[in-house]
């Protein structure tokens, strides 16, 4: 049995263990791959393992330690990377036949920064194709299973990134979140899952889905771990003109300030939405009581325009996606039919063959919403609804420092349970408004469902670039609940 149990150790403990010489970074990589060997046949969190890159990174860390150099903040910390982020030496497929075999030719900024901070890139994580989905069932390479119950989905689209952390295969991982694709799988797998403010983390090198919505963020086993990861990846990048120049906070140092005096708002009308499981709703009220007991000022607020968030998102997201996915033409990269009669035949058949059903659905929906005659009625109207949602949040943040909602209306569901597209879309009803408004939010495990034993996530939302306040509140809640979700799979003896 390995001495390094990644299902128990936090990223910080791994880093400290490497720094103190309790174990080497190479031994950490060994432990990660041994754990993957033991459980990933069942879970299928990874599409590809990058041993060469991980051991190279480990050797750099071990050499620094041998030389007596100060180690970087994520030295020796094993990390999973969602397969829509480029990293030279790996394929980047977005879980699509369209990009099967695609070799990265440059590095995603967030991934490069994570590795520069000492992290070990263990492999590329499964996802819903092009990040379209909430269950990872849309992967062209087979679904990922939830480490809490292999008959259930891990959520999505960053399902592999969530599952590899939940099952103790890596300490942290990177996902991307356009409408909830980090927070929703975080809630369903009992991990801490952060969507930073739009622009906080460079989007350079992540395959674009919705360019006004996409944001890269970390998964971890603790709030401290996602704060560590955010410090490593945040900040302006000359390669992304929408990356924000605001200074990067000292997120890890904000965590022990407690919740005293924090103004915490329960979003009452979102909580009262039809379709939210009673136990999930109750968990938010219990979280509010926890904050009150910690000395926070707890109140209630309504965000009436967010009720139209889902509708606005299913215009704006697909509209942006249909534009972004126009680049897949079978010429520069990606799937190409071998026998095209002419260039239009090449485009249309390569795309129809390369994209899976949900990708085709979103491209069609977005193209329709942007087409002549429908643009004003759909896209224009959705953009105006988005303005109303932003105004609601702005007003709420005049009264409150953080807002509380469930992350998802229910716990992890069974494979095939939500085969109707719109039923699947409803999973993201609480997370989508945050992307439309560009705010930051984190899902923190808040308990287990009494019936199914599956984890429930609390969503905490803060204002633009208020990640220090957001993570401070999350850390206070985490400490007060003293809940350390360990999936049954992680307890399997190695």
């Amino acid at each position, binding site marked *: 049995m390995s001495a390094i149990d990644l299902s128990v150790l936090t990223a910080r403990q791994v880093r400290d263990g490497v720094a103190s010489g309790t174990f080497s970074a190479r031994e950490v990589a060994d432990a990660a791959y041994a754990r993957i060997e033991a459980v990933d046949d069942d879970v299928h969190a990874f599409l590809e393992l990058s041993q060469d890159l991980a051991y190279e990174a480990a050797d750099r860390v071990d050499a620094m330690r041998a030389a007596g150099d100060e180690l970087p903040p994520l030295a020796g910390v094993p990390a999973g990377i969602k397969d829509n982020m480029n990293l030279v030496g790996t394929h980047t497929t977005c879980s699509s036949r369209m990009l099967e075999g695609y070799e990265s030719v440059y590095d995603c900024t967030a991934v490069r920064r994570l590795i520069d901070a000492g992290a070990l890139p263990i492999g590329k994580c499964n996802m819903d194709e092009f990040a379209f989905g909430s269950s990872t069932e849309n992967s062209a390479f087979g679904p990922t299973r939830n480490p809490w119950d292999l008959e259930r989905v891990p959520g999505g689209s960053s399902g592999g990134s969530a599952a590899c952390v939940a099952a103790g295969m890596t300490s942290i991982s990177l996902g991307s979140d356009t409408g909830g694709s980090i927070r929703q799988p975080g809630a369903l797998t009992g991990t801490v899952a952060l969507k930073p403010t739009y622009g906080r983390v460079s989007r350079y090198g992540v395959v674009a889905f919705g360019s006004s919505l996409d944001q890269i963020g970390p998964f971890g086993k603790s709030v401290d771990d996602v704060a560590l990861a955010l410090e490593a990846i945040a900040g302006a990048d000359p390669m992304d003109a929408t990356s924000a120049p605001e200074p990067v906070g000292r997120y890890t140092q904000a965590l022990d300030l407690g919740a005293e005096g924090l103004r915490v708002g329960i979003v009452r009308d979102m909580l009262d939405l039809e379709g939210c499981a009673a136990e999930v709703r109750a968990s938010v009220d219990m979280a509010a009581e926890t904050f009150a007991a910690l000395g926070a000022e707890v109140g209630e607020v309504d965000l009436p325009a967010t009720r139209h968030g889902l509708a606005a998102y299913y215009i704006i997201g697909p509209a942006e996606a249909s534009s972004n996915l126009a680049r897949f033409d079978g010429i520069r990269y990606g799937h190409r039919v071998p026998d095209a009669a002419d260039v239009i035949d090449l485009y249309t058949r390569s795309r129809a063959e390369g994209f899976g059903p949900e990708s085709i659905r979103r491209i069609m929906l977005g193209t329709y919403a942007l087409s002549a005659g429908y643009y004003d009625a759909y896209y224009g*109207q959705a953009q105006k609804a988005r303005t109303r949602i932003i105004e609601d949040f702005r007003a709420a943040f005049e009264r409150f420092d953080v807002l509380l909602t469930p992350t998802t209306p229910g716990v992890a569901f069974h494979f095939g349970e939500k085969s109707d597209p719109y039923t699947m879309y409803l999973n993201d009803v609480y997370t989508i408004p945050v992307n439309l408004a560009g705010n930051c939010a984190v899902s923190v495990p808040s308990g287990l469902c009494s019936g199914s034993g599956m984890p429930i996530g609390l969503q905490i939302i803060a204002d633009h670039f208020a990640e220090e306040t957001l993570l401070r509140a999350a850390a206070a809640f985490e400490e007060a609940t003293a809940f350390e979700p360990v999936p049954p799979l992680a307890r399997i003896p190695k």
Partner: protein
Amino acid sequence: MAITESDVRHVAMLARLALSDDQVRTLTAELSAVLGHIDELQRLDLEGVEPTAHPLAMTDRMRADVVVPGLSRAEALKNAPETDGTAFIVPAITGAGEES
């Protein structure tokens, strides 16, 4: 708003997707259902509300106008389905009848 099979064929042409008749039928039903759910947007009174294209009040930021290395030709062609090592190979474009 109901969407017809002919709408779906038109949009598929715009999106450059060669759909089978089966796909057209399925998508007509699925897109009609999704559009039915999001039709609530049409009923909102949003007269005079400014549309939002971007969530933050950002202005374009330019980087310094200096030459930096980009992808090499070999890197740019690395994933090309068809190449002669110097260029992407495409079917003849002139004379190809594009429907309008």
